[in-house]
């Protein structure tokens, strides 16, 4: 997983988002065991308390679960993974729409751009 943090939000929420993305994208497989808090903290270069807080939040959201003796695991529920994916997709679309609105492009214009983009892609692959 790649860890990069910006100043816009608390670090723990940025960790939550990064792990959520890894789960939604399948980079972290359902049921996969996560490294220990200290190891993850070291990898991300953050304070163990911050990592602990992020993992507690991921647990609260049902994306990871803890087993008393053996550590933390990625959820095995396909529905939870699908929901995470959908939530992240919706957030991305929302940000995209905000940026487009700021550029003064309406829905129709956006659809035109998306179609043009798709055709360009298809054209590329046809070469």
């Amino acid at each position, binding site marked *: 997983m790649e860890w990069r943090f910006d100043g816009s939000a608390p*670090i723990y929420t940025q960790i939550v988002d990064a792990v959520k993305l890894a789960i939604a994208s399948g980079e972290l497989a359902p049921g996969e065991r996560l490294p220990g808090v200290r190891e993850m903290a070291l990898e991300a270069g953050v304070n163990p308390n911050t990592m602990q807080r992020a993992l507690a939040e991921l647990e609260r959201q049902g994306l990871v679960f803890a087993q008393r003796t053996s550590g933390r695991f990625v959820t095995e529920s396909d529905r939870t993974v699908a929901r995470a994916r959908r939530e992240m997709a919706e957030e991305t679309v929302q940000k995209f729409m905000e940026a487009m609105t700021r550029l003064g492009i309406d829905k129709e214009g956006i659809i035109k751009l998306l179609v043009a983009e798709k055709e360009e892609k298809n054209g590329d692959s046809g070469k």
Partner: protein
Amino acid sequence: MAILESKGLSKSFGSKKALDGVDLKVEPGRIVGLLGPNGSGKTTLIKLANGLLVPSAGQILVNGLAPGVETKKIVSFLPERSCVPDWMSAGQLAGFYADFYGDFDRQAAENMMARLEIDTKAKIRHLSKGTREKLQLIMVMSRRAKLYLLDEPIGGVDPAARDYILDTIISNYNPTASVVISTHLISDVEKVLDDVIFINNGHIVLSAPADELREQQGKSVDQIFREVFKC
């Protein structure tokens, strides 16, 4: 109980007030950034906590006690300037620390030196500046102390050595101990901090959990620092 606490702490050098009525509390298990520009009072505060200076007024308590023999047993201090005897070898230095401090984990120190491939037989004065700084940090972090006071640990080293130093602090993290890091290089340390204390002209101007500040202001601690201390 707070590991480090001060009440109305003041220190004057002649007519200059280096610290003026400082109240602070550092709880166990926290990594705290003591952040301020040069001359703001960071080093004075750390020296008071160490018993290297005596308050002009107010008090400072380490684990409930005034600085002295008992508190020195539980405080591990990294001074701003290197103070290791440079005629020793790194191996001898580890032995020296082991003799001096009952809480020194020699095995941990040796493991860290081995990982950095420090030649334990070479005299410290023959090591590079970066290696000397890392070596001193290894000694300080190999103590199983309750309070680590690190005065400008990343001041004079390159970014790779900075990462090493911060990783060493994180990997030696212990939930019953606290770490106070004084620095003006905020962007480098902000990821590892639980709490930040901004100090300026001997006063505490802001004290809060780092993530709380980021959440409230939508900015990094570094950006907030630049605004608070704008020249």
